[in-house]
């Protein structure tokens, strides 16, 4: 597969960009933030995503989705990065949907996939526990108890966890890791919304002797690791795509500013020092774009080293987007520091996306281990 979009994929991109620019531009984020919206995310918009076929982009057609692949999910994620739109897309439409598609029982799929595809349900994946993403060092446990399991532990950085209709919880079982579908209203589940720097949403979830039936298991008992890894890798590639979207949008905004803002009697874009920094940043953005396209394509092709390509993409896109927003604020000067201008919002969002599902260091570590050094 070539590393460029097909005609169909380009059409999806246009549709997504067009829809978001019209219905959920940055003003949408500002409104949710400034009105201190209790959910911090719009259920109406999520339903509209369902109608447009965005929510279920990777969900098979028999479950009401579009049955498309990683590249298409990445197209959506990049578009969301450009408009900074808070959306359950990454948490529900990618991470949780992927777990259910790959490992869900017939009943689980029938219960949730169509509702996600329709933008009616939000399902959150609860993996992280400490301050850093480290799925290999999980402490949440699920002990056999009667016909089912009893879950204990604490999860954090659970995307949209405070408005979730269902939770997918990763926990240690006797000989491995298992994923459980948990109703957030179950006794012992406590959920606290955490308002993040980017005005997007996550939650902390505490599980105290939470009882679930055996049919809450997704896939097989002790067999959750590969299932989780598959979902995480798709999520990481999509987060990388969002980083590209946000970083590139901040860059484009900055280039427009350089072409119009005057200082010392010149357009600031005429200053060679800024030109070279811009040209360097442009190069980095192009490289990051290729890396993300490579990762999404590798996932679609089922390449055995796809996880590694995903790490390349997430690490690279993260560092590049970070540079892009730093340059954006600096080149805008004082106005870049004001809440009124959008560049600061990009900086905030990029910071969160960088931390999400493993920062550049986490993915460099994977690269080093994979290459045996």
């Amino acid at each position, binding site marked *: 597969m070539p590393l460029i979009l097909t005609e169909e994929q380009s059409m999806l991109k246009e549709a997504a960009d067009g829809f978001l620019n019209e219905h959920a531009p940055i003003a949408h984020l500002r409104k949710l933030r400034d009105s201190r919206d209790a959910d911090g995310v719009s259920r109406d918009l999520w339903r509209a995503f369902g109608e447009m076929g965005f929510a279920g982009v990777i969900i098979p057609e028999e479950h009401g989705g579009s049955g498309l692949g990683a590249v298409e999910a990445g197209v959506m994620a990049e578009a969301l990065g450009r408009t900074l739109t808070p959306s359950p897309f990454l948490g529900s439409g990618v991470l949780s949907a992927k777990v259910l598609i790959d490992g869900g029982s017939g009943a689980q799929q029938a219960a949730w996939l169509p509702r996600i595809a329709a933008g009616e349900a939000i399902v959150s994946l609860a993996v*992280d526990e*400490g*301050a*850093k*993403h480290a799925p290999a060092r999980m402490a949440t446990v699920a002990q056999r108890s009667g016909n089912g399991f009893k879950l204990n532990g604490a999860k*954090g*950085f659970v995307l949209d966890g405070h408005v979730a209709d269902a939770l997918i919880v990763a926990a240690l079982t006797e000989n491995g890791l298992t994923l459980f579908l948990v109703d957030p209203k179950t006794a012992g589940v406590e959920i606290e919304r*955490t*308002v*993040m*720097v*980017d*005005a997007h949403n*996550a939650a902390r979830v505490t599980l105290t002797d939470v009882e679930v039936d055996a049919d809450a298991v997704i896939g097989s008992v002790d067999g959750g690791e590969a299932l989780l890894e598959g979902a995480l890798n798709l999520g990481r590639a999509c987060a990388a795509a969002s980083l590209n979207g946000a970083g590139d949008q901040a860059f484009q905004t900055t280039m427009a500013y350089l072409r119009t803002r005057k*200082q*010392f*009697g010149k357009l600031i874009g005429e*200053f060679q*020092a*800024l030109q070279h920094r811009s040209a360097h940043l442009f190069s980095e953005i192009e490289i990051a774009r290729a890396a993300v396209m490579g990762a999404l394509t590798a996932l679609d092709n089922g390449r055995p080293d796809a996880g590694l390509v995903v790490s390349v993409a997430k690490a690279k896109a993260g560092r590049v987007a*970070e540079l892009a927003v*730093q340059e954006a*604020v*600096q080149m805008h*000067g*004082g106005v*870049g*520091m*004001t*809440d*009124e201008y959008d560049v*600061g*919002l990009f*900086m*905030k969002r990029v*910071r*969160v996306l960088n*931390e999400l599902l493993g*920062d*550049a*260091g*986490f993915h*460099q*570590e994977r690269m*080093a281990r994979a290459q045996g050094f």
Partner: protein
Amino acid sequence: MTDLDTFRAETRAWLEANCPAECRGPVESDEDRVWGGRNAVFPTPAHKVWLDRMGAKGWTAPEWPAEYGGGGLSREQAKVLGSEMRRIDAQAPLASFGVWMLGPALLAFGTEEQKQRFLPEIVRGEIRWCQGYSEPGAGSDLASIQTRAEDRGDHWIVNGQKVWTSYADKADWIFCLVRTDPEAPKHLGISFVLFDMATKGVSTRPITLISGKSPFCETFFDDVRVEKANLVGTLNRGWDVAKHLLAHERTMIGAMGELGGGRPLGQVATGSIGMDDEGRLDDGMLRARIAEMEIDAAAFRLAMERAGDQVKAGQAHPAIASMLKYYGSELNKRRHELLMAAGGSDALEWEGERSRGGKAARDWLRTKANSIEGGTSEVQLNIIAKHLLQLPGA
């Protein structure tokens, strides 16, 4: 016992006796600082006592001449005072743009009357000053300011707008650059004037920063009357005063890389992430970046120390302040990027007690202004290229 030893002993005794317990220990936030002024706010009544006592001795401005209310101390004595204050963890009695910025400029450029009138009030923290430099259209190109002062005989009528005026909404007086000759080339034709913020026609509006809160305001002047007696330095040569003052501001902001302080990065990271079996931070990639940062930070502290020694020895090039400002602010930004990485998802929270109201994130965002305020990094690099490297056309 040398004179300096005697001074140290006396100072120690006086501080022990006069510094209230409430005024010892770290200043946790900007709100805990004492800025003085007509509407002064004190975190505790003891802070007012502490300011009054220090102000009476002139130790809020230790090296200013005693005749203007200053401490009249030598550089060595001032260092002793500083180290004795650090010994007991005494808080600065006063935070003041008057002390840091306007005072040095008045001492260099002010008339005798101006010094007599304004300096003692500054020392005692009675009048709070703000700085009116930047304008919306000007930015880094400070000399292109448009705020106009029309000559009306014994006074001017000032019209225009300033931006990034720190604490304009809380200040009593402003020192301000205005254009007094619209015909002159842009660096000429600017004058440095002082006026009361309570004057009719002055209004302010706070600016919200990406970090959420902000000391900055937009400030508007609508037919504001300014007495000619309040001109500092020569008419149309305000640029010289401004440059003098900017150099002070730069050293101050550059020092933030050092003073930003707080817990060492490595400690924050191990606290948040943990250690591996060999006692190393359990994130090898972050560990390498922190180690590199700490090398740079330690080297920068030595550079600050060396710059002080050079000043003392009369060997300092004035543009070195630009170098330190550039380096210190870039370093501080890097430090906070690493603090965010060390804090992980915990550091991303924006509200609530656990994150102390999103302190890590807000501090991080605030540092992004370091390389913009007081002359952008780009402006500092231009200055270095021109004045220290003599590159052509710089």
